């Protein structure tokens, strides 16, 4: 079955996720969808699977118009999506999970024997006898759950199977079994659309590729005709904007934060690095590579299992609450602004002063005048556009909200700033103001750790960059020794880095 997309557009608020994508999938092909984080791959698959409608554009299946209003419609057309985050029923059995929505039944009564038989048929493709049809999914390992999720799409007898990073929680043998299965699906004339960051995986299974960048279609073609280098160039693009304030002349000072052997399996393995006063250290890596886990481990939100953390020469306990970390002078900017970064219904002033209200309170009583004054000062520094510091934060645009979140760290007067995606989902103007704030903090002698998916920003802002890959952190190297291509290679595990051996550990 041929599935054709024409001019698919989608925006979320101010962010353009897809900007007119044309694509065609043909029967019997494995089509890899490639692109950096945020390029729009997952959004595209969700639209095809009927999870939400596009803002514009058309789709057709074998020439018939296809406008799914729910996943139910997609199923009816034989299109099944295997989610990046698992979507299983933990309380139900493996068989029930695999067959949900198409249970073998007689007059409304489930036929348990037939259900077990059907489930076993599909499970057999994976050769994992320990996954029994009658086991409860809540009792299974993460890898086993992913197998169940894939089995569900196969049981649905889909003709187009969309796989969004299906190997993210699979290991060696299971990955090979999945690839063997994908090849069998292709032989049966199915279409498999496959999202992955790992180029070596893509080369093993896919026939054709499409690269998306910033919501736009960049290139499509047979995989055999391109090199990894060419693919990476497509993904990164050429535009390096001139958004970044000039670096100060001062050299970084003494070590502020020294981390040795920090472990939190399976998210983190033996992570070591140091950040100096006045330095901006960038952490690159794919989503789910452990970047966020690292920052959260440092800030006490995800207590590490082992390792050592030293702050200005003093050893800190590795397990601590965020409250203790704040008192020790760490500041944290969450990647999830809506979920845990800001209290959106509260006034701007409350959000800015929340981590250090002592400056505008006496004996527990808040002075609104002092709070407003101090919030205003922090807002001015980042040029937050608002009528008053007391308006609800949710009345601001996304960019201004993010600046409020950043301004909080300034008010807190943190000595070490842990920034997770400081400019995610933010317009260019706000980005520049956030960059200026970060640069000013460094000039004041603060240490900044900055996690980002946006490579130009890491290159424009950081003094050194380290790359996270599957829970391990590469040695940090001066930014001049990296290229966008070598960072991406380190993140997705392409050829070994061409660069000099690691600098001495800090």
């Amino acid at each position, binding site marked *: 079955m041929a599935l054709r997309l024409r001019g698919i557009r989608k925006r979320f608020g101010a962010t353009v996720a897809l900007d007119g994508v044309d694509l065609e999938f043909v029967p019997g092909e494995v089509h890899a969808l490639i692109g950096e984080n945020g390029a729009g791959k997952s959004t595209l698959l969700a639209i095809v699977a009927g999870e939400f409608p596009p803002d514009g554009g058309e789709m057709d299946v074998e020439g018939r118009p296809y406008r799914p209003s729910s996943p139910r419609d997609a*199923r009816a057309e034989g299109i099944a999506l295997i989610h990046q985050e698992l979507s299983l029923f933990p309380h*139900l059995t493996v068989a029930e999970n695999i067959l*949900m929505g198409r249970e073998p039944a007689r007059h409304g009564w*489930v036929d348990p024997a037939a259900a077990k038989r059907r489930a076993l048929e599909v499970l057999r493709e994976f050769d994992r006898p320990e996954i029994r049809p009658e086991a409860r999914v809540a009792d299974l390992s993460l890898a086993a759950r992913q197998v169940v999720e894939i089995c569900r799409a196969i049981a649905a007898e889909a003709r187009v199977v969309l796989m969004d990073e299906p190997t993210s929680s699979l290991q060696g043998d299971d990955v090979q079994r999945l690839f063997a299965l994908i090849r069998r699906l292709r032989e049966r004339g199915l279409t498999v659309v496959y999202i992955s960051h790992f180029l070596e995986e893509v080369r093993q299974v896919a026939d054709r590729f499409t690269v998306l960048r910033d919501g736009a279609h960049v290139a499509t073609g047979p995989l055999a005709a391109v090199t990894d280098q060419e693919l990476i160039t497509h993904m990164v693009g050429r535009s390096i904007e001139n958004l970044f304030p000039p670096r100060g002349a001062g050299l970084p000072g003494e070590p502020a934060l020294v981390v040795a052997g920090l472990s939190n399996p399976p998210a983190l393995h033996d992570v070591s690095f140091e950040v100096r006063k006045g330095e901006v250290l960038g952490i690159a890596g794919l989503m789910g590579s452990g970047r966020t886990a690292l920052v959260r481990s440092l800030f006490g939100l995800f207590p590490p299992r082992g390792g050592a953390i030293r702050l200005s020469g003093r050893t800190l306990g590795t397990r601590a609450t965020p409250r203790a970390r704040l008192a020790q002078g760490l500041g944290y900017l969450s990647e999830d602004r809506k979920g845990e970064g800001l209290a959106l219904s509260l006034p701007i002033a409350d959000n800015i002063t929340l981590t250090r209200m002592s400056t505008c309170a006496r004996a527990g009583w808040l002075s609104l005048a002092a709070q407003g004054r101090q919030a205003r000062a922090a807002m001015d520094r980042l040029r937050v556009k608002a009528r008053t510091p007391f308006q609800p934060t949710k009345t601001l645009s996304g960019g201004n909200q993010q600046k409020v979140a950043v301004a909080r760290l300034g008010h807190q007067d943190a000595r070490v700033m842990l920034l997770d995606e400081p400019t995610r989902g933010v317009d260019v103007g706000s980005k520049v103001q956030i960059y200026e704030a970060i640069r000013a903090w460094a000039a004041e002698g603060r240490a900044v750790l900055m996690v980002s998916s946006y490579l130009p920003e890491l290159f424009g802002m950081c003094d050194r960059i380290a790359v996270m890959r599957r829970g391990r952190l590469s040695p940090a190297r001066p930014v001049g020794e990296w290229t966008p291509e070598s960072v991406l290679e380190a993140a997705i595990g392409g050829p070994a880095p061409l660069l000099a051996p690691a600098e001495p550990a800090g």
Partner: protein
Amino acid sequence: MREPLRRWLDRLGPFLGLAVVIATFALLSDSPESYLGVRNLRIVLSQTVIVALGAIGMTMIVIAGGIDLSVGSAIALTSVITAVGLRDGWPPPAAILAGVAVGGLVGLVNALAITRLRVVPFIATLGMLGVARGAAKWVGGQQTVNPPATWVNDLAVTFPSPEWLIVAPGVWLTVALAVLVAVVLRGTVFGRRIFALGSNEAAARACGIATDRLKVWIYSLAGLFFGLAGVMQMSRLRQGDPTVAIGTELDVIAAVVIGGGSLSGGEGSILGAMVGALIMAFLRNGSQQMGWPNYIQEIMIGVIIVLAVALDRYRSRAA
């Protein structure tokens, strides 16, 4: 092998609680024979019928990840409707059907508010708590409705005639319905989809299940059970009282939760909920027999609800 064993122990939990309650009162009682006798069993069972019927409906809703706070008001409304029907000379089956049907209608309206207006179940049914109570007073003309004596009054009596029935017809009906719904939940496509809906609603949608339509069925069906509970309420009081059953929804929810239901959905059992209803009824009955004041019962039931759920959470964390 260990997994099934643990799950069996989990299922036994509510029974152990019931055994502890009964044993405690039997030991405290001056005359254990009469406390454990058939006579007292009849009293307790006939007192349990209303909460037990409500708990059957509520179990379906809770498994599906929902909640219904309008049960007490729905019981009052349907008891008044039944009484008005009998007063106006309807044949008893028609009056009973009317009560049950209005219960289903209340559930349907709840479901439409939840699925069409996108109001969370807590709020939608909180609104219905007021609406149904008001409607009961309106239909009853702001007073109790006294119908002529019919066989409806014998549905949930403590001492049924003929004697060989042992317990009231309403008790037998409740047992039969409980078995029926338990089997439906376990063995039908409809039942398994209720579990799926409560376990992961987004995934249920992604599996092509019409989740909104399913909710309409669940709340409407549960409403029929609340309507039947209203008929039993009218039967026990022998009148339709628009101010009756205030707060009954909390007893019903407590029964479901003591029986292993999780308010976050995906878990719950009819058998457990029935045992939960019995635990509360035996507690009330026992403390009455001991001559303890009402407030002691209230405190004890409150403590038991929290302990039962805490124990459940502890077990699932340990697992």
